């Protein structure tokens, strides 16, 4: 028994010790034929395994888009579930190539931890949900309200800051377990429920007795720009991830979708021609094939499609575009020109 187990363990360890990393990430990814992404262990709409164990979500599609651009196939991806504490170590140690794990872009994470953030794929923020019948239209009308909040999160301190900054008072109802916070809110024990807006939407979709009875107010109590993260000092790879995001946003702006991308190849618009590789040159600048953006759009979709499918109108979460609308429609999504 002694020999058997030690032998087995030794065998297993040898089998799994990874190969040495040679050069920058882009070369490694091309050589291995797989993009390894760090994702959450389960957050609806962003990255969550479905009943068949397949990861889905807006972060997962960001990872798939990078794989489509680099390897020409969005399915050449591997998802490594990372906890909040593990995620940065995994990226630093090279265990993952990109972190697509709804991570907020902050100064210290770039300055101190040595990372770079791609353009956000979702602008989240702490919001407030109320029952529709209360008739509240703005968070500024919540003076004196009882607010349900989960304890031990930054949400709790943001809530205090927000009400203080707006010179309002509130009665907090602090509960440790999310499930019980939700029960308290939906049974009417508090006037409002605060959490990240995407979290509020997920709760409304899955837990509210009737989702249409609840509204998420437009105000945002804290900024949470969520973006893909890569290591500093590997500029080629950073450019690939960054321009993957821009290509998806530009495609939506130009009306290029996964459905019409083949017809769009005949378009006279020079920007679309450059994007889809009809006029070559763009792919080469990124060290990718000329069909990099075409493959992203064809196989994964443009930003609007990804949004609608995972968190927007076609998903259970039913979030509206809000800040995540294109800049032409009052949002913040602005793709840099592909030229």
């Amino acid at each position, binding site marked *: *028994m*002694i*020999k*058997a*187990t*030690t*032998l*087995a*363990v030794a*065998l*297993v*360890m040898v*089998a*799994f*010790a*990874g*190969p*040495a*990393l*040679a050069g920058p990430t882009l070369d490694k990814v091309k050589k291995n034929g797989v993009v390894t992404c760090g994702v959450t*262990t*389960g*957050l*609806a*709409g962003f990255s*969550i*395994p*479905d*009943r*068949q*164990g*397949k*990861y889905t979500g807006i972060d997962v599609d960001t990872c798939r888009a990078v794989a489509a651009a680099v390897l020409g196939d969005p399915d050449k991806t*591997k*998802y*490594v*579930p*990372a*906890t909040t*504490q*593990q995620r940065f*170590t*995994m990226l*630093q*140690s*090279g*265990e993952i190539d990109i972190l697509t794990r709804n991570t907020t872009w902050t100064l210290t994470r770039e300055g101190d931890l040595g990372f770079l953030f791609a353009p956000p794929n979702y602008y989240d923020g702490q919001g407030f949900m109320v029952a529709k019948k209360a008739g509240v239209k703005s968070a500024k009308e919540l003076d004196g309200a009882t607010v349900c909040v989960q304890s031990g999160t930054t949400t709790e301190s943001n809530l205090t800051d927000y009400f203080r900054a707006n010179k309002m008072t509130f009665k907090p109802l602090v509960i440790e377990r999310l*499930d019980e916070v*939700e029960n308290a809110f939906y049974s009417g024990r508090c006037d409002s429920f605060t959490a990240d807006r995407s979290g509020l939407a*997920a*709760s409304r*979709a*899955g*837990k509210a*007795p009737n989702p249409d009875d609840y509204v998420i107010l437009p105000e945002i109590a804290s900024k949470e720009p969520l973006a893909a993260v890569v290591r500093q000092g590997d500029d080629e790879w950073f450019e690939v991830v960054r321009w993957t995001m821009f290509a998806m946003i530009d495609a939506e702006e130009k009306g290029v979708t996964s459905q019409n991308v083949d017809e769009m190849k005949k378009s006279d618009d020079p920007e679309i021609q450059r994007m889809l590789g009809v006029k070559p040159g763009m792919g080469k600048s990124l060290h990718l094939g000329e069909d990099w953006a075409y493959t992203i759009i064809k196989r994964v979709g443009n930003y609007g499609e990804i949004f609608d499918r995972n968190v927007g109108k076609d*998903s*259970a*979460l039913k979030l509206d575009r809000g800040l995540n609308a294109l800049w032409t429609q009052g949002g913040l999504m602005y793709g840099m020109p592909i030229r």
Partner: protein
Amino acid sequence: MKAIAWARANLFNGVWNTILTLVAGYLIARGAWMAIDWGLIHAAWSAPDGRACRAITNDEGACWAFIEQWYRFILFGRFPPGEQWRALIVVILFIGMVVVSCDRRLWRSAWPITAIWVVGLIVSFILMHGGVLGLPVVTTDLWNGLPLTLFLSVIALAGAFPLAILLALGRRSDYPIIRALSVGYIELVRGVPIISILFMASVMLPLFLPAGVNIDNLIRALVGLMLFYAAALAEVIRGGLQAIPTGQYEAADVLGLSFGQKTRLVVLPQALSITIPPLVNTFIAAFKDTTLVTIVGLFDLLTTASNSITDPQWRGFYVEAYVFVAAIYFVFCFSMSRYSRSLERSTER
């Protein structure tokens, strides 16, 4: 008649005992009724999604439809659905190996058990990982749910056990350096929470490794658990060693047995059979402790269960998911404790 007499003698012998019996009886009946009412009478057995299920039960009963829809994910997690038969065989194989090893008739020689485990582990590894015999490769990050829980607890304990024997012997060694090393290791590892060891293995270790060298997350957690269990088991075994009368050691010396012979033939067989109850106790605790690997991003049985209840369609069926998982854990832990009882009885004879 016998039952009435027994009840009178034990349950109703005095005013206070009668009151206590009635109150306790009422509470038990009430609890049992609530469980039946929730779990059977008002329960919903099939529904297309969570909302529909809640509409059927009216929040007064269990929604077992959730388990019906999600049991495969809870049991096997992200293991590819078409390949889950492989994981199922591995689960059966692991349980089979443990059950067979429990048969005392096999203990007379080390060979049968060694052979069973070598073959069993190689077969399970091939089944899980694939890549040969036309089986598609399933990488370790997809080894989730019950197979992972069994894999971690069985292999970590099996690996820790020999190490623990060495540490326990080392702690009682006459050589100061060996003794100091053993004591140092045991006290250091036992003195920190298991979570911090997992954390070190999973979060700190990769930072110390040279760039590009990655040890699989599963192996890191496995080795971390193994090192911790070794220290815990060593102390249990040391208790057994100390319980053996000095006369036994002296008798062995007088017979001219070498240290190895003395340990193997006289000391260990007695020490281990005394320590069976605390050993099984440690095994049960260790089996449940494997749920802590959730903090290093491994999907064990408990993590897959708590993951399934965050799905937007099936959100918040905490009780159903946890009852399901608790039932699985109970079956394993209860069998272990029954086995230890039967072992104790047979060694007493």
